[in-house]
């Protein structure tokens, strides 16, 4: 199997395991799911290095979403956030 297609298959498996695990644990926070999706994608990208047709906008978007989720959580802990 092509390396890039293998990475997509692994990503799909990781996303499925992430959703199943968090849901089974009763996790309802949306940002927890998105943060783990970002982690899954980065792990697959760094290990399998899939090819992309253009610049990897998906990686940037997920990283941004992860950063926002972490920032909101930090603000919440500090008592400043919404």
């Amino acid at each position, binding site marked *: 199997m092509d390396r890039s297609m293998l990475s*997509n298959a692994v*990503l799909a498996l990781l996303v499925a395991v992430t*959703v199943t695990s*968090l849901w089974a644990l009763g996790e309802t926070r949306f940002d927890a*799911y998105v943060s783990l999706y970002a982690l899954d*994608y980065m792990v697959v990208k760094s290990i399998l290095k899939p090819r*992309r047709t253009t610049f990897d906008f*998906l990686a940037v978007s997920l990283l941004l979403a992860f950063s926002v989720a972490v920032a909101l959580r930090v603000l919440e802990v500090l008592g400043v956030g919404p």
Partner: protein
Amino acid sequence: MVLDTYRGTGLALALSSAVLSAFSYLSLGLSPITALWVGVLVVGLSMFSTPTEEGAKLSEFASTMLANLLENIGRTIEGLSIRSRAVYRASGDSVYIIFTDGFSRVDLDKVSTDSFISRIGDTKVLVLKSPIARVHTEGLGDVCSSFEEVVVDRLNLAESIECVDRNREVIAKVVKPKLLPSKTLERTTGNICSILLASIAALLKGGEWTVLEKCELDQCLVRVGVFERYG
């Protein structure tokens, strides 16, 4: 935009999951169901952004033929008694490999890539065309990714690559190379992986590049760096 089945499926997944996640958000808010559809969206987008043109992997039969063809470079250089490191320079979409008796006596700006062999003053200059061209690195981004794609995925010359790009120097470890190194080639240009790495570096980073260390052992370590001109 041409879409094959794989990318089309990815696009369909992405679009449908985008609609479903929007619907879930509007009806249920930020819930695990919405997160599930966002997860499917991520997978769909990943599939859609994966290039799927046929990347033919060279068989061992063809790889050996390539190695024998490239050995002619070494034989030519030895036959002409040129003993120097090669300098790799990109010109347009091609890469040229420049050999000369002494780089200290030659102004590289005066070297024409149109001639196979020429003289600048008393110095012989040999110019060969690299097997690597810009078409081989399109859509691949950085030097290390391109090198791995060419050596492992396309030419099947090694099992894997570990590579570090230090801007003016690139170091790559070729794990389990599948071709025996050619002594003739190694005495002159370095092995096939050296030629490929230096060519890719010249194409993607510009400037002039040379091979600093060559492959000697089973676990090949290749180092290429920017060529420092004399004077």
